[in-house]
C-alpha cells in the first residue's frame, strides 16, 4: 500500500489507518461524529495527498482539455478552477475532477487517487488522436505532489497566518482570504511555491493546498498549530465521506463509474454541450434531449431505523412492490441525526416525496426522496 508524506504524522496523532484506493489513510482520529461536527462548526484538516495531480502546459493544452473533459475550459480565467468530468465514448464517467487554469497556457487537474493510472492512460490515448499534440506537454506529478484540505467556518480566522502576504501567481490577491470560491493562487511557504485554492469537498468554506511532498508535513503542522485555538481538528476519510454525502457530492466508485453518465448523476451543469465536439458528447446530448433511464436521488429514512449502507436493495412501495435499485452511498447524518443516502432509481421514482423502502437485513424500512442537498451551509 502507498503512504502519503503524512503517514508518520497520522500515527502520532492516533489515526486509525485503513486501505483506500491503494493508499493507507486515516479513517478517523477520535470519532467520525466528532470530526464531522468540528468541520461544520469550526474547522478540520484533511490529508488529501493520495489524490492525483496532472499538469498540462502549452498553447494546445486548453483545446486538448476541451476535447477530453465535459466542462468548457475556455470559461476559466487565469487563477480559476472548476468541477468537470472525463467521459468515455459511451458518456460513462472515467473520473470526476477539478481543472485549474494556473497561467494562460498551464492547467492542473486534480483527480481521484484510485483513478490516477486509468486517467493518465485514458488521457494518453486521447492524446494520440489529438491533432495539436505537438503544442502541449502532459506530466503526471502525482508521485511527488501532496495536498491538504482545511475546511470549516473558522478557517479564515487563521489561514493567513500560515500563508501571509500577496499571491505570486494565479489569481492576484493581497492576502489569501481575498480568494473567492474556485479561485487559486500561487503563494510561498518556507520560500517555496505552493498552490492555494478556495475549494473543498465538505460543503463548508475552506482551502485546498497543493504542494511538493517535502513541504506537506510542515504545512500540516503549521496549519494545525495556528488553527487549534479556533477548534481545528485533524479529520479522516470517515468524516470526509459523511460531510460530502450530506451535501450530495459524488464519490467515484459510488455515484460514478464507467457505466454511469454525468446526466444520470444530475451533473448536467458541468457538461458544456454547446462548446463543440468532446469525448462522450453525442450520448450525453441525446440523454439531455430524450431523458435518462436512471436518476440519482437523495433519500432520508422517515422512521427510526438502522442507517442505509451501500448495496442495500431499494424497493418501490404499494400493492406490487418491485426492486428498483440499490443504495450507492448511505450513512447516519451526523448533522441531521437521521439515516440518509443516495441511489439510482428509474425516473418515475425520482420525484421529491416519493416513498421508497430500503431493505436492511431482510426487513424493509421506509424512506422518502428529498431534494438535494441534505445540508447547506448557513449564509
Amino acid at each position, binding site marked *: 500500500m502507498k503512504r502519503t508524506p503524512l503517514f508518520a504524522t497520522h500515527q502520532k496523532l492516533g489515526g486509525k489507518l485503513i486501505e483506500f484506493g491503494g493508499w493507507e489513510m486515516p*479513517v*478517523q482520529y*477520535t*470519532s*467520525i*461524529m*466528532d470530526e*464531522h461536527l468540528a468541520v461544520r462548526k469550526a474547522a478540520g484538516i484533511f490529508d488529501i495527498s493520495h489524490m492525483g495531480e496532472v499538469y498540462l502546459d502549452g498553447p494546445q493544452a486548453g483545446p486538448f482539455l476541451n476535447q477530453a473533459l465535459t466542462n468548457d475550459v475556455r470559461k476559466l480565467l487565469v487563477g480559476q478552477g472548476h468541477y468537470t468530468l472525463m467521459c468515455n465514448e459511451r458518456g460513462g464517467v472515467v473520473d470526476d475532477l477539478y481543472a485549474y487554469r494556473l497561467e494562460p497556457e498551464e492547467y492542473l487537474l486534480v483527480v481521484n487517487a484510485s483513478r490516477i493510472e486509468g486517467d493518465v492512460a485514458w488521457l494518453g490515448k486521447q492524446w494520440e488522436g489529438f491533432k495539436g499534440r505537438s503544442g502541449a506537454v502532459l506530466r503526471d506529478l502525482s508521485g511527488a505532489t501532496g495536498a491538504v484540505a482545511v475546511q470549516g467556518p473558522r478557517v479564515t480566522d487563521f489561514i493567513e497566518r500560515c500563508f501571509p502576504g500577496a499571491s505570486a501567481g494565479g489569481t492576484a490577491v493581497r492576502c489569501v482570504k481575498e480568494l473567492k470560491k474556485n479561485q487559486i493562487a500561487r503563494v510561498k511557504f518556507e520560500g517555496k511555491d505552493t498552490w492555494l485554492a478556495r475549494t473543498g469537498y465538505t460543503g463548508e468554506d475552506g482551502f485546498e493546498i497543493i504542494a511538493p511532498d517535502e513541504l506537506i508535513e510542515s504545512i500540516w503542522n503549521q496549519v494545525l498549530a495556528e488553527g487549534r485555538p479556533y477548534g481545528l481538528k485533524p479529520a479522516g476519510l*470517515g468524516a470526509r465521506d*459523511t460531510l460530502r454525502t450530506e451535501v450530495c457530492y459524488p464519490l467515484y466508485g459510488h455515484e460514478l463509474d464507467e457505466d454511469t453518465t454525468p446526466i444520470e448523476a444530475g451533473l448536467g451543469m458541468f457538461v458544456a454541450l454547446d462548446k463543440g465536439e468532446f469525448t462522450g458528447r453525442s450520448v450525453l446530448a441525446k440523454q439531455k434531449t430524450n431523458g435518462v433511464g436512471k436518476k440519482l436521488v437523495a433519500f432520508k429514512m422517515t422512521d427510526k*431505523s*438502522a*442507517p442505509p*449502507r451501500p448495496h442495500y436493495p431499494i424497493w418501490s412501495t404499494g400493492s406490487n412492490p418491485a426492486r428498483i435499485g440499490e443504495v450507492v452511498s448511505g*450513512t*447516519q447524518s*451526523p448533522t441531521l441525526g437521521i439515516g440518509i443516502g443516495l441511489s439510482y432509481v428509474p425516473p418515475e421514482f425520482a420525484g421529491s416525496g416519493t416513498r421508497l423502502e430500503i431493505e436492511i*437485513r431482510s426487513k424493509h424500512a421506509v424512506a422518502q426522496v428529498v431534494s438535494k442537498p441534505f445540508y447547506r451551509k448557513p449564509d
Partner: protein
Amino acid sequence: MAKLPSDLKYAKSHEWVRVSGNVATIGITDHAQHELTDVVFVELPDVGKKIKAGDACAVVESVKTASDIYSPVSGEIIEVNKAVAQDPALVNSEPYTNGWFYKIKLTDPAELNVLMGPDQYQAQIGSA
C-alpha cells in the same frame, strides 16, 4: 485503559456476561464501544427467541459500519433493553450498566466456564 469490571465474564468477540441465578445479562465491553466509536443504532433480538452460543443475535451500528453481536451463551431471550434501542449512545457512555443489550435464560450454564475473566480478556485486547 479500557475498564473491565471484575465480576463479569468476557467473550473473545468482545461481549460481557453478568450472571444472576439462571439468567445472564449481555452487553459489549468498554474496549468494543471505544473501537466502534459513536453508536447510532442498536438492533435487539425478539423476546422469546431461542439462541445458541455463537449466534449473531444483535447488531450495533456506528456512523461507519454495522457490527454483529454474538451471543456468548445459549438460551431464551427474556428481556431486551428498550432504553438502549431508544438512546444508542448509552452503549458508549455506560457500556456495563445502562448500555446492556438483552437478558437470556441459560440452557447450558457450563458454557460460562469457557468464557474469560477480566485478566484473560485484558491479555487478549493488549494494553489498548
